[in-house]
């Protein structure tokens, strides 16, 4: 296996808080790599630096061997990195399918196209419909995004990430705020996605993580304290003290 994403010495401070503290992490091609850690450990900050929304104070990020540390977010998307947001980030004023169609449009070269009605371009609409069907939202396609439930918004986040056809997906707590049933469905869905895309999964739900992950990294106070297979992580005393032990 080859490394798809290499994170080297990544550090980011907010005031006195070390949100990322010399993070070193390698995401292998094709793996589902989970990052776990308590609230405020710096998981979202890590994703933000990988997607280009935040600049690290120090360190490097390499994607397919190329240094992308200073690359703007939209270039990273074209390079092949897509993300979902822990706090739902959608275009609320637009319809559901418009959101997904934009994600499809984004990967079809530039959008300096002024004449054709974007909502009547079959390639865009059909492709968008396909992703909506995958996450089970096909019947909500024409609804206004703001009118959807929280659970449906979470699914839209996934659909947008899928629509990018990016080889690397950064999923920041996709199950956040979902009920047990919805969570279970999403876990099944991600299982089906495993192997097709490389996934960096940030997740709070331990059952989900241990069910899905090929490898797990544990982040505490911005620092990776352990990386290993689920079995290794379960057996790691350090992790149990620092994190798993706090669970109940």
């Amino acid at each position: 296996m080859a490394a798809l994403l290499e994170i080297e010495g990544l550090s980011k401070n907010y005031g006195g808080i070390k949100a990322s503290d010399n993070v070193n992490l390698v995401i292998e091609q094709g793996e589902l790599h989970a990052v776990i850690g308590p609230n405020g450990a710096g998981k979202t900050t890590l994703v933000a630096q990988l997607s280009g929304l935040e600049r690290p104070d120090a360190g490097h990020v390499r994607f397919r061997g190329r240094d992308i540390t200073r690359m703007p977010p939209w270039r990273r998307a074209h390079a092949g990195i897509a993300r979902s947001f822990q706090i739902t980030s959608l275009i609320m004023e637009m319809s559901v399918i418009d959101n997904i169609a934009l994600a499809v449009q984004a990967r079809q070269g530039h959008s300096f196209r002024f004449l054709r009605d974007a909502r009547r371009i079959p390639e865009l609409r059909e492709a968008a419909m396909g992703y909506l069907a995958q996450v089970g939202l096909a019947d909500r396609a024409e609804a206004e995004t703001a009118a959807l439930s929280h659970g449906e918004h979470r699914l839209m986040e996934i659909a947008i990430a899928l629509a990018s056809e990016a080889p690397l997906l950064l999923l920041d707590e996709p199950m956040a705020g979902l009920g047990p049933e919805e969570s279970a469905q999403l876990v099944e869905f991600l299982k089906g996605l495993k192997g097709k895309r490389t996934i960096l999964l940030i997740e709070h739900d331990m059952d989900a993580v241990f069910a899905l992950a090929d490898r797990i990294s544990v982040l505490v106070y911005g620092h990776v304290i352990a990386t290993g297979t689920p079995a290794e992580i379960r057996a790691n005393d350090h992790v149990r003290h620092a994190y798993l032990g706090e669970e109940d």
Partner: protein
Amino acid sequence: MKPDRKTAAGLFVLALLAVLPPIFIWTGNPFYVDLATRLVILAIAATSLNLILGYGGMISFGHAAYVGLGAYAVGIPAYHELYGGFDAIASFSGSFQIPLAVAVCALFALVTGAICLRTKGVYFIMITMAFAQMVYYLFVSIEEYGADDGLVIDVRSELPGINLDRPLQLYYLAFVSLVLAIVIVRTIVNSRFGMVIQGAKGNDTRMKTMGFNTYIYRLTAYVISGAMAGYAGALLGNFTTFISPEMMDWTRSGELMFMVILGGAATTFGPLMGAAAFIVIEEVLSHVTIYWHLPFGLMLILVVLYVRGGIMGLIEGRWGRRR
């Protein structure tokens, strides 16, 4: 697309504007042709502003500068043609003035937009206004072009087959231009480009992470909008045959913003409705009282606060507070 009342209302106003002016002339009311001409030209400017303000969420408080620059692009070559000097510009006589207006405004939008669009929110509003005031003071300081007394435009632009000295011909040029402006903005808004600027208005971060360089798309919309406003300005210069810095004052920019919001931002016919309402109310109130600005201002504030979506919102039947 469901057949909607908003489109019907917009087409109705356009139909009125198409047939009324000759009737005004036949019935001996040429003054109303002037009023209609002003209405139509302002509607073009408001329609151009709607592209960035309504659909793009770029609250530009300097749009009158483009209208003014467009008018000066007619007035200055006309001045040099008559009084000599500045041969390069004087040779832009007649038929080149309108393209010149469009080009100057596109360039001004490109340069200032590149800077303004680095900022957001209140800063964006302030900096667009600052650039417009810069142009305002620039023309106040140029004695040759009349400074704040303004410049009389002695000869109108030349166009093949159209004599702009004839009020009805000028009017119908403006009217056809308005129809085109509405069609152009609507086409752009519905295009892939339009989806990008609307998406960026709704959620810039999401658009960036999807892979859109939202800055460059916004800047393009900004340039298109500025160029269209410049065209409206060129028409306005030909209509009033007079141009002064006062046309570019920030209050003028504010009026254009009000037209868009009053009519209904991010709607096809909203700016036209807003401009029409603006002209009609201004006309009626100014006959009733010389202190018409006060009730007018209050009315605008009430509409902005209580009628979601402006006049178009009313027509659609959407009452209640704005979100």
